[in-house]
């Protein structure tokens, strides 16, 4: 059965293929989810909660404000008082015994939709995944085109986030109890509908991971992971605004600074590497020697040390040089003074440091790419009267680019991660913003989870883009 699976995409499925275990598991998952949503899922909910403080302040919250409760209570938390008592009023779900559909209908008809939006999204994802999976199945079973490649990717993405969505929808029920409401989570334990739906989503995921092998479009399918990680971050912010929304707001500009540093550095890295790479294949011993010395020396020094050197030691070097010029002769004194006054901004220092360091590594990639082109290409170009530089520009580099691009793309992703080191230079990048927030609140777990998720989204996203460009630039040899 495993052997004749290759033509499942674009061809009518044979009888045996229609009974493929993955399609059957997928069907079971769809059925479980759709049925489970009619069964009680969250039969009880917190109708209202009254929190009293030592100074006499009380905070009263009602459903659905409670969905976003922490966000609100945190903002109105009395600063000088301590928590004295919490009384919680549980109520049975009013509509359809608290089934998934019941909650959806109720939430969708709530007055202030934006308060419950994240809850709706969490609860909706498994159903949407089930519907997409069902569409995939129906096409597979009835259409003469068999499996739809695009649907595989979409269903896989949704199947990845469906279990998370379900679990997070449950957290909605209890999570705001964390700081103010001392509530036992067991009060709000979900019932059968939840567990069956969860089992269904896991079946979907299993089936889709199996089916994913049918698709040739791996790069596209892996976008699912980017999407999933981004979605986790989004849900964290939405379901636990305290502290995640606050962390997000705090580290947001760090992301832009990180991106700016990386993009600007990368631009200069490419220029340096082109020169370095050409130097490393040069037949002139002087140019070759200088380029090799640069590559060998820089690759032998840790990036962190290079950054610290540029930030702390370089200004001293400039001072000494400037003084020397001032003393040397009055005609040089203004130039010397400029050197003494020269102060790199942390941002500039970071860009210079990353460029110098990564330039060395990427130079080697350029060198390898250029020398991978058969020397006959250079000879043919030269025999037609092209100069060395013309041959490089029109013949060698356009071919080398295709060899160079994938590893250089990987270097971009590595640069994105290594850029976190510039936080030692007082650059307010993503990492440094995270450190600052943690120093203020001591919420280390939450802070670093958010920072890690942000980096993950950026790196996974860039990896996919690199992969995409790579497939686009392949050519017939």
């Amino acid at each position, binding site marked *: 059965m495993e052997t004749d699976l290759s033509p499942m995409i674009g061809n009518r499925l044979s009888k045996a293929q229609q009974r493929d275990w993955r399609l059957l598991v997928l069907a079971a998952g769809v059925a479980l989810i759709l049925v489970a949503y009619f069964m009680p899922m969250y039969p009880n909910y917190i109708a209202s909660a009254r929190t009293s403080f030592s100074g006499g302040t009380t905070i009263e919250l009602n459903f659905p404000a409670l969905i976003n409760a922490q966000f609100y209570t945190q903002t109105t938390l009395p600063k000088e008082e301590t928590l004295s008592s919490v009384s919680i009023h549980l109520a049975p779900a009013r509509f359809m015994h608290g089934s998934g559909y019941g909650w959806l209908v109720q939430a969708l008809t709530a007055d202030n939709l934006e308060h419950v939006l994240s809850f709706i999204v969490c609860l909706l994802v498994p159903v949407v995944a089930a519907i997409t999976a069902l569409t995939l199945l129906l096409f597979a079973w009835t259409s003469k085109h068999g499996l739809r490649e695009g649907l595989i990717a979409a269903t896989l993405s949704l199947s990845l986030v469906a279990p998370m969505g379900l679990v997070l929808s449950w957290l909605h029920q209890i999570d705001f109890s964390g700081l103010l409401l001392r509530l036992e989570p067991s009060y709000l334990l979900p019932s059968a509908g939840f567990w069956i739906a969860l089992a269904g989503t896991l079946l979907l995921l299993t089936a889709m991971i199996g089916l994913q092998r049918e698709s040739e479009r791996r790069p596209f399918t892996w976008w699912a992971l980017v999407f999933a990680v981004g979605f986790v971050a989004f849900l964290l912010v939405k379901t636990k605004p305290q502290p995640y929304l606050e962390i997000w707001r705090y580290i947001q500009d760090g992301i832009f600074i990180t991106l700016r540093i990386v993009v600007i550095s990368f631009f200069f890295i490419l220029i340096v590497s082109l020169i370095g790479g050409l130097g490393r294949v040069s037949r002139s011993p002087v140019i070759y020697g200088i380029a090799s010395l640069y590559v060998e020396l820089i690759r032998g020094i840790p990036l962190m040390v290079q950054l610290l050197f540029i930030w702390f030691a370089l200004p001293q070097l400039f001072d000494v040089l400037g003084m020397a010029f001032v003393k040397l002769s009055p005609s040089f004194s203004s130039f010397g003074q400029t050197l003494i006054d020269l102060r790199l901004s942390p941002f500039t220092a970071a860009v210079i440091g990353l460029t110098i360091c990564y330039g060395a590594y990427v130079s080697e990639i350029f060198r390898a790419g250029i020398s991978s082109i058969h020397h006959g290409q250079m000879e043919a170009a030269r025999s037609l009267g092209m100069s060395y530089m013309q041959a490089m520009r*029109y013949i060698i580099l356009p071919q080398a680019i295709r060899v160079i691009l994938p590893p250089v793309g990987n270097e971009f992703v590595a640069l994105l991660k290594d850029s976190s080191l510039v936080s030692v230079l007082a650059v307010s990048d993503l990492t440094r913003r995270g450190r600052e927030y943690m120093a203020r609140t001591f919420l280390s777990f939450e802070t670093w989870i958010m920072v890690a998720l942000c980096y993950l989204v950026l790196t996974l996203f860039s990896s996919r883009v690199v992969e995409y460009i790579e497939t686009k630039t392949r050519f017939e040899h």
Partner: protein
Amino acid sequence: MQALAAEPRAGIIQIRNVSKTFEHGRVVALDDVSLDFFPGQVVVIIGPSGSGKSTLLRCINHLETPDSGIVTVDGVPLSDATNINKVRMEVGMVFQQFNLFPHLTVLDNIILAQRVVRKRTTAEAEAIARDLLVKVGIPEKAEAYPGQISGGQQQRVAIARALAMQPKIMLFDEPTSALDPEMIKEVLDVMLDLARDGMTMVVVSHEMGFTRNAASRVIFMDDGQIIEDTTPQALFSAPKEQRTRDFLSKILH
């Protein structure tokens, strides 16, 4: 070594006492070679592997720099580096491995050097390229990439690419030895046409049919030296040297 019957014209290529060694003098590729090629001549060079045939060709357009001696092309001595690109425009070269540019279409392969070296406009260059594709018999492959056409077709494109620069001399380094037998003829036919048109050609090849039909002169090389320099008839009927006889008996079976 015997000079050909008195030549009234000046050599378009003059090779004077050229020597070339590799690996720090351990391998002698050319050993004090002196030679003239005249306009309109079709010269075939034969000789055992490693005898220096390719090196001789590559010295003519300076892909190799001679250790000593002087090569003069159309009156321009190659010792002066500034002349090299100018001279290379006048000397087309066709390689054993075709060396087409795989990232460019057949048409762009022929256009590129015309534009960047000869400074022709794209329209001019394209017109010339299309004419040449007709001449080598594959106008329909203009938009194809080298990887999509056969070896024989690739070699014909390579010839067209070299001709597009309107060279005065064409060098061929074993143009058919990387080809499947059924494709050899189509390339040789193009070369025969070229010879009939009066192009000056220096061809390293062991295709004896081509030598009989097109060559005006055959040179036998061994150990970096010119052993015999004569007409095809003379070489095939009465080779002077024992080495030549041995070699010919090997390649003619």
